[in-house]
């Protein structure tokens, strides 16, 4: 039974700060990919093109029911050497990390977008047809502007969830909070004890908890799907 040392707890924060910037960078870029790709998936599935629809469904189900960690390794160890040979190792890691997070969460957000699109009343489609709007114009001018704002709070939840899953990227040497504590901090102070991990956990909590309260408030105001 050893003693809790507060000095080691406070020493951890400079390292956590370095990692936090990377963590936030990956969260934001990953969210951007997840939102855009999720919207694309939802729209494509709405079009119900025979074979494409089933393939996309199978892909989404596979990605959602298998661990993100395995997917990161698939991208990092298999896809990378063939496709990204021309980039530096840092850029490769950035692309792999953002793609893994983005594709994984796109499979969740596509369902959110789909619910949002389904919630737009049938009459809106009929009206667009009556005005003989081209199909693309009906989507961009009528359906999506009504569907997207309503689902934004729900998407916020996935950004918060993603923020808490960025530590998985430490396994492919992305210098996030967990990687910083595990290597830089551990090297300088002779091992990362419970104090440093507690500090990292508190940092996650301090950022994600206010965000989820904000999202809950927004959900109440906008009305979720």
């Amino acid at each position, binding site marked *: *039974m*050893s003693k809790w040392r507060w000095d080691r707890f406070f020493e951890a924060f400079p390292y956590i700060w370095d990692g936090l910037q990377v963590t936030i960078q990956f969260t934001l870029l990953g969210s951007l990919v997840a939102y855009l790709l999720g919207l694309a998936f939802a729209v494509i599935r709405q079009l119900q093109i025979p074979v494409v629809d089933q393939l996309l469904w199978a892909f989404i189900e*596979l990605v*959602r*029911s*298998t*661990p*993100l*960690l*395995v*997917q990161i*390794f*698939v991208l990092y*160890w*298999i896809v990378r050497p063939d496709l990204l040979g021309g980039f530096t190792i840092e850029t490769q890691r950035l692309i792999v990390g953002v793609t893994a997070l983005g594709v994984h969460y796109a499979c*969740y957000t596509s*369902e959110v977008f789909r*619910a949002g699109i389904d919630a737009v009343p049938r009459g809106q489609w009929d009206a667009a047809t009556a005005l003989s709007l081209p199909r693309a114009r009906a989507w961009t001018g009528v359906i999506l502007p009504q569907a997207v704002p309503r689902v934004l709070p*729900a998407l916020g*939840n*996935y950004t*918060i*969830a993603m923020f*808490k*899953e*960025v*530590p*998985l990227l*430490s*396994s492919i040497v992305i210098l996030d*909070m*967990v990687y910083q*504590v*595990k290597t830089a901090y551990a090297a300088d102070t002779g091992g*990362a*004890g*419970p104090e440093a*991990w*507690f500090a*990292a*956990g*508190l940092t*996650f*909590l301090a950022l*994600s*908890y206010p965000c*989820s309260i904000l*999202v*809950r408030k927004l*959900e109440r105001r906008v009305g*979720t799907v």
Partner: protein
Amino acid sequence: MFDNIDIYFERILEGLPFTLWAAVGGIALTVALSFVAGIAMLSRSRPVRFVTRVYVEGFRGSSEVVQLFFFAVAVPIFFGVSLGATAEGLLLIGVIVLGLNHGAYGAEIVRGAIQSVSTTQLDGAIALNLSPLQRMWRVVLPQAVVEMLPSFNNLFIQLVKSTALLSFIATPEIFKKADELRAVPAFARELGLIYALELVFYLLFAIAVTVIMRVLERLAARRVGRPPVHRARRMTMGVSS
């Protein structure tokens, strides 16, 4: 390409008991904690509600990987080294973290489901002179459980996926076992096959969880005399509400 497939299967099968125990143990602890914390959040006592809130928000708000490292590091330091030294000790730490983390999400599921039981049901139970315990056990919970099961299905799939995280603390579960093969140059070229096998295993687990939960849903619905819940084919992550 498929020359070494026997070896891959063998390695994954070596890790399989650990993954299964992590999943089963994690689910058992999750269910227990969900009910305790979910009911405690509806308690009339303010301190009980406060303590439960701290647990739920603490585990939902921080990262699972960090929690895993915290427990893997803190447990040996504070309670002697013996636990973390063996594969079984690491598995136990993993089960505890999986249970604590997903139990926090499950608590909200239980709380929400209990609150969704209509108040007229409670009025009826009071009119029948049932004690508070009987009201909870015989009237509220059987109906609430029907509401909970689809959400628990998602949560359990989430938990099964999280068992891969135990590789971070060197528990020899299936992902750790497959990942060790990367060090062997002869196998390195077949990583695609190895990881594809892994993905199939996790997919099968998720399907198994869903099949079992569907059966439970039907049983629970029949018990309270309702038709089975018709549900949209849709998964959520248990992040909201």
